[in-house]
């Protein structure tokens, strides 16, 4: 199923159809480029400005990946802490929720007082991305088959063994689901972080390109940057889906896709 070429061709077809619709919309309504640039204009810009845009993309991608890694580490670590006892979960979850709903845009300046710019951007991206990992992993850790839990208890499994060999595998499909959400959020978080706390000028990420293009009303370039962000997002999502498939294909319904 996953090797069928349709799996790749169809999404590409849908994307092509979307781009076509976009091109037609621009053409038929005679939209000026500052309202909605045509796809070819955007592509041209993308190629023309590739040096500066790709450099920025790499910066943003780097932040995203580090933030995602930290989100996974932090989210899973917290989930494990919460799973140690329900009472810990009740006590600390409100703090996690506070972190999640804190508008990074608002607190970024305060962070800048004590943190370097790069760290502040990372913290922003992390705050945005860690919660789905935490929440889904906690849900998974709490969904253990009670009979298996009993088996582990009987076998004299230590807390740590129960965790590593029972709870974590059970939580895996939930965790991977949370990871797929967090992937995109880490990217948005990186962009928002760059906007809120990021350095500008040379060597800065896609967010600065977007703000700069908006300031200069260079809308085609703004769209080129947006498209790079979308592509990055799709790539991250595809990579995480592949990971999920590799890990779960032998045993979890969600990746078996119906047996014959």
């Amino acid at each position, binding site marked *: 199923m996953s090797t069928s070429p349709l799996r790749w061709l169809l999404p590409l077809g849908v994307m092509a159809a979307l781009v076509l619709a976009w091109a037609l919309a621009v053409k038929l309504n005679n939209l000026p480029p500052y309202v909605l640039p045509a796809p070819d204009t955007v592509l041209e810009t993308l190629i023309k400005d590739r040096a500066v845009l790709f450099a920025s993309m790499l910066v943003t991608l780097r932040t995203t990946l580090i933030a995602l890694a930290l989100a996974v580490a932090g989210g899973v670590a917290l989930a494990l802490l919460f799973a140690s006892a329900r009472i810990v979960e009740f006590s600390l979850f409100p703090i996690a929720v506070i972190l999640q709903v804190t508008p990074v845009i608002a607190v970024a300046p305060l962070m800048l007082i004590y943190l370097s710019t790069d760290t502040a951007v990372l913290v922003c991206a992390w705050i945005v991305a860690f919660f789905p990992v935490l929440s889904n992993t906690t849900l998974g850790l709490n969904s253990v088959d009670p009979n298996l839990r009993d088996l582990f208890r009987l076998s004299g499994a230590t807390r740590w063994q129960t965790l590593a060999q029972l709870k974590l595998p059970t939580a895996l499909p939930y965790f991977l689901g949370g990871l797929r959400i967090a992937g995109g959020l880490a990217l948005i978080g990186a962009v928002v972080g760059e906007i809120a706390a990021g350095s500008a*000028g040379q060597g800065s990420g896609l967010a*600065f390109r977007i703000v700069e293009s908006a*300031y200069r009303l260079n809308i085609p370039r703004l769209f080129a940057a947006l498209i790079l962000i979308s592509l990055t997002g799709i790539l991250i999502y595809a990579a995480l889906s592949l990971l999920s498939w590799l890990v779960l294909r032998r045993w979890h319904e969600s990746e078996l896709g119906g047996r014959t």
Partner: protein
Amino acid sequence: RAADKVTFGTNWVAQAEHGGFYQALADGTYAKYGLNVTILPGGPQANNRLLLPVGKIDFYMGANMLQAISSVVEEIPTQVVAALFQKDPQVLIAHPGVTAFEQLKTRTLFISKEGLASYYQWLVDAYGFSESQVKPYTFNAAPFLVDKNSAMQGYITSEPYAIEQQGGFKPTLFLLADYGFQTYATTIETRNELVKQNPDLVQRFVDASIIGWYNYLYGDNAKANALIKQDNPEITDAMIAFSIAKMKEYGIVDSGDTATLGIGAMTDARMKGFYDTMVKAKVLEPGIDYAKSYTLQFVNKGVGKELAPK
């Protein structure tokens, strides 16, 4: 004849820097000129600017000439028809110990992304500032207050007030305009098509706005301030007073050419000078037909000059 309905979009929440327009609205000057004006305040990120070319608003309050020239580059059919601020209120704000502009070169500077994309490039070129000393400014002065070895950007009419209140000291202010950043500011932009098809309407709006500014600065501005406070309940009388005082002290609105040409004045010479400086600083590309970004058709007529104190 029914009054023409027009919408004027600003680029920030209502404040004293928009006083002249509120004045014309409050004291009936717009009405007298046959205009039924709605002022649409902008916000921290809300971008009313794109609403102009697509026809959702009729006039837009442009921040400075850089954006107007960008519009030419991007072939956006708008132009500046009046410049109400002769000096850009952009300042660099430093702690009291700083005495000379050059000293800022060794300090951490909090500059916004927009600033970095515009005037800061000029500072680099003209004064040898560097990008590496910049930290992002996000419209919150706390980082500046904490770091005694820093300076930050600001509008002369607003940030210094908050800093005086919260920091408890009078900061040193360097108005960029006084150091050679000679863009006009707080302009009126409109669509080229409106200029061509209904110049009378444009002229009336420009004239009424200019009169509004004279009255706001030199007449009874109580009603205008009431309107401002209605649109933005957060603002206090003290803030408004501070802003007006600074506008007067630094000649933001009424200085230089306005003595002869009246408020709103623009000249080709100054535009050329500005463009050349910006090209040299690599903020703008050479070869742009910058003259398309403005027109002198509606200003320099001395409208309302009689309202200024002698």
